């Protein structure tokens, strides 16, 4: 299967992951337990994009606002729309990232990395510049790895025997949240 076919036929994998991650983040008030690493904070905020249909018949729904106002997005999911993009705040250890994750292509957009002691070192020497660059690459790789770890959690449950139970819990959350 070439990449274009994979994107068309398997885009649901990324969209289901993003929906599951939203559920998971609200299950314990933003805390998600990462195997081997403990709790991290994952909060969906401000901006979401849902889509429905294909090609010219595709509809898009953009939801902006505070967390409490994402009711429209939940209703959209109940109407069969798919979560395509979400703005996420993720905190792990002492650091906090903001980024938009896209479901179909798994792209990271508008990533704001945490400020660190090294990144505030304004030296112009080659070593200082390289140090800042490595620090920044490290922060970008860490958010990329963390998203992969969350994705692995999803894949484990999605391909395992407990998926039907998990799916029931996601449906219950979705209906409850849309009613409130």
């Amino acid at each position, binding site marked *: 299967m070439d990449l274009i076919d994979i994107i068309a036929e*398997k885009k649901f994998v990324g969209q289901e992951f993003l929906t599951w991650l939203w559920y998971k983040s609200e299950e314990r008030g933003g805390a998600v337990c990462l195997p081997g690493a403990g709790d991290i904070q994952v909060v969906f905020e401000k901006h979401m994009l849902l889509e429905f249909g294909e090609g010219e018949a595709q509809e898009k729904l953009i939801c902006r606002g505070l967390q409490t106002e994402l009711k429209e997005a939940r209703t959209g999911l109940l109407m069969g729309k798919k979560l395509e993009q979400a703005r996420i705040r993720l905190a792990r250890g002492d650091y906090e990232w903001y980024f938009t994750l896209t479901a179909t292509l*798994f792209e990271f957009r508008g990533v704001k990395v945490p400020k660190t002691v090294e990144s505030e070192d304004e030296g112009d020497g080659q070593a200082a510049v390289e140090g800042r660059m490595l620090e920044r690459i490290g922060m970008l790789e860490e958010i990329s790895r963390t998203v992969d770890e969350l994705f692995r959690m999803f894949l484990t449950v999605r391909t395992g025997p407990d998926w039907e139970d998990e799916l029931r819990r996601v449906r219950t959350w979705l209906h409850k949240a849309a009613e409130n």
Partner: protein
Amino acid sequence: MGLLTASASFARYTVEGKPPDNFWEFAAERIKSFSFRDIDDTVDEYSIGWVSVQSMFDSEFAYASHAVADYIVLTMRIDERKISAAVLNKFARKEEERIKRERQVPKLSRNHRLEIKEQVRQQLMSRAVPVPAVYDLCWNLADNTLFFFSNNKKAQAVLEDFFKDSFGMTLVLQVPFLAAGKLVDADAQDALERLRPAIFV
């Protein structure tokens, strides 16, 4: 939206293909061969090449190396002379009118008009200033992954071709299904292949 900007946007790739044993020499030689050549003082329409992430004018990596620890960091620079269709049509029509008046003919043949349009295009192109675009990348040599700092589909397609030309290795965009294949164990691979969309409502 690059590697060093306050807000970064990137797509993730894996690098497929076996790098040679003397990799750093190979990389340095290839980056030099495919470095950016300026076209400001020429009539070339298009130029693409590698420059330093710290300066789009540093195509010899005189001030900053492309090698940072276990990473190769580069900027793909593309300079292109462009003419908008509206401008080209305007000047082609103007030239057609001039020739019709000069020769006192009511209209010109289609072939003649095409010829005029091409001549006008070349004239305008030689006067147009090359428009630069830069896209950063960070290649992790330890795990053969690469971040490309643009979500522009055209730029991604250009990168995939130019990277292959430069290093003889292939970039594969890590969309969720492909990324998933690398994250799950062998037992889950079959289940992953068989997945069908779930109904959430």
